[in-house]
């Protein structure tokens, strides 16, 4: 029993041979995994889609957006004319009349079977005009946001990652542009460039990118401190690859959400500019321009002229907002936040 006396000597109890005791592969549970269970594995995008699908209002929004896109694409035949040839991409025509054909019915007639949305002051079929007008509104929304992202994402990412004077330069420019009310700036740009579809898109893109740049820069500032970014640097990955392979994909989620929501805002702004007479040509079947023209008819009691394009704008913007909210929840779900907290 002498060896059980109290001692001040260390190491009387030793754990011998623990190298052998550790079966490394089993410890980590590698072998427990069966490669056949692959079907259960989900990529991150599938995860996002699954969470998005479980959100009912978002799915309704998505359905409405999809329906509107379908209607506008198939409203009129799509044709491209080059060098005398006409290539018809899409031959179907859901709209019963040519939206710009005048006097297909009596002027300012209320809704009827022949003209479900009635006719406007020039006797044009409102139903056809609303359907075809979606082409302008929706494409302006999509293209302007896409262009704004194309400018905002690189600038925001580079400003956030590089820091220093590059950051100062980009962010002060953003601050300067933010100092103008959005619509006033857009009006100024349209006033300088003149009216027209692409000028309108340019005005909306030029005022839209600042939001994405600022949002992404903030996210990048947080993401670039993460260890996997340092790890990429430690591997000798060039900065450009680090930014666009490691930093941006991990910082982009809020920007995607913001961009989706902004499609609605941009459609509204396009309509607002159209209403102010700064959008497309007043005779074009664009929702905003139709509202603007309808003002005169409204005072004469012809409610249907403004109600239907207004409803179309309302429906699309609301649907896009539902999709954006759903995307927000799906991209940053509780699960991921909890996971991050656990780290």
């Amino acid at each position, binding site marked *: 029993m002498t060896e059980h006396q109290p001692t001040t000597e260390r190491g009387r109890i030793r754990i011998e041979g623990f190298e052998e005791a550790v079966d490394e592969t089993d410890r980590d549970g*590698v072998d427990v995994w069966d490669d056949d269970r692959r079907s259960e594995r989900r990529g991150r995008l599938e995860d996002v889609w699954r969470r998005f699908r479980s959100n009912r209002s978002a799915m309704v929004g998505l359905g409405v957006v999809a329906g509107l896109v379908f209607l506008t694409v198939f409203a009129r035949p799509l044709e491209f004319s080059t060098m005398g040839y006409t290539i018809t991409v899409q031959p179907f025509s859901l709209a019963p009349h040519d939206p710009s054909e005048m006097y297909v019915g009596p002027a300012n007639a209320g809704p009827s079977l022949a003209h479900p949305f009635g006719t406007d002051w020039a006797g044009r079929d409102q139903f056809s005009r609303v359907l075809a007008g979606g082409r302008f509104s929706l494409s302006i929304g999509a293209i302007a946001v896409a262009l704004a992202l194309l400018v905002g994402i690189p600038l925001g990412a580079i400003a956030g990652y590089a820091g220093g004077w590059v950051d100062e330069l980009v962010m002060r420019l953003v601050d300067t542009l933010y100092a103008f009310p959005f619509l006033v700036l857009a009006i100024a740009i349209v006033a300088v460039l003149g009216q027209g579809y692409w000028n309108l898109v340019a005005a909306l893109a030029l005022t839209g990118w600042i939001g994405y740049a600022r949002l992404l820069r903030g996210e990048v500032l947080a993401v670039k401190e993460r260890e996997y970014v340092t790890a990429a640097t430690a*591997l000798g990955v060039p900065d450009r690859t680090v930014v666009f392979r490691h930093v941006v994909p991990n910082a982009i989620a809020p920007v995607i959400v913001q961009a989706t929501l902004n499609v609605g805002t941009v459609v509204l702004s396009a309509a607002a500019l159209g209403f102010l007479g700064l959008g497309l040509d007043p005779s074009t079947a664009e929702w905003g321009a139709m509202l603007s023209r309808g003002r005169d008819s409204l005072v004469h009691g012809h409610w249907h002229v403004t109600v239907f394009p207004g409803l179309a704008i309302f429906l699309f913007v609301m649907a896009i907002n539902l999709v954006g909210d759903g995307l927000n929840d799906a991209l940053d779900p509780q699960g991921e936040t909890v996971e991050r907290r656990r780290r």
Partner: protein
Amino acid sequence: MSDDELLLRVEGLEKEYTTTEGVLDRLLGNGTRVTAVDGVDLEIYEGETLGLVGESGCGKTSLARSILRLTEPTAGSAVYRDTDLTTLEGSALRELRADVQYVFQNPFESLNPRLTVGDIVGEALSVHDVVPPDERDRRVGELLETVGLRASHATRYPHEFSGGQRQRIGIARALAVEPEFVVLDEPVSALDVSVQAGILNLLEELQTEFGLSYLFIGHDLSVVEHVADRIAVMYLGEIVDRGPTEELFDGDAHPYTEALLSAIPEPDPLWEGDRIVLEGSVPSPADPPSGCRFHTRCPKLLSPAEYDLEPTTVRALLELRTGLAEADGLESLPVDPDPDPEADDVQAALRDAFDVPADLGDDAAEAVLETALETAAAGDVETARARLESAFTTPCETDRPRLEPVDSGAGGPDTHAVACHRFDDAGTETDERPDRAETTPTQQ
């Protein structure tokens, strides 16, 4: 295990952080400076493992990241073979990263969640063109098998793996570029104890297989003892003790090292060794203590040259001075606020409160202390403190110790060097060095 071939020599490396933010602060020069790494010298030899230990916030990671230029060092040099890492720029630096690699502390943070394991490991291969593009997938599979995973795991995402497995992926990524020198930044401290041993053994196997040199950062001395050939102990941005593992564990070491060693848990329920409990917390690196940086917590302070005092007495006198310095008056000192104090009682209470022995064991010193305590009891705390300071300032407070070899072996990897005045040849070290047995009875 260590050959005598020098791989990496770090000299006078400094890393200073400033709290300035924005243009205005920079222009006005506002903000405090924090010296995280303060003039560190290190050598790493081929094939060895150098353990770097120290408590949280002492600058271990800052040091390692400064060596590899993951943060920019403020001063000093780190010469890897014949290349000074601190002066490399751009592509030259990126190319060198194929030779020096880094394994991160937190395997949950160090893998990009959006890339598959194959992409993560394969990125290293493609950046340095280690293998031709069509062989990358095969090589990734091989690497995963080397670290104990399966080749088929390449298509999975990091979130599908456990902590230990992720750390293996991190190791595979570091190995992909076929490095010579790997910094292991607390590679196991984020892991479950049961997984730690597996990772440590893997690292050891890889070292033998590929002839790697490691800088192993850790705060768990029992882990570092297991893997390291040599150990460097860091305190507040400085290396205070450096030498072969056995010598640090068995020989005379820096008081801080001794305290760390005594804190290693012992599984023997009947073990009665003394734990050296350090008082107070680590001082802020923004305002490091004068002299020896460890003097505010050191249990083995040197006696002031004029007297012959025990280390515990010197410690107590230092505490008393700190207490007096922080006090606004007699009332705020931890003594009974007696309305009509008998002078003697207050003095005794003061001694009691700061563990100053009733007799210092040195008449001259005792006389000075009594005068000072009388002054304090009379209410003049500041004068008392000044009197004590002029009398009892230890060399540890005023002179900064340098890292000096303590044994005959000058130079080479086997030198044991300590930065402590107790080991100064110039000092009164022969009679002042307390018998190690006093505080660590293990040596008896």
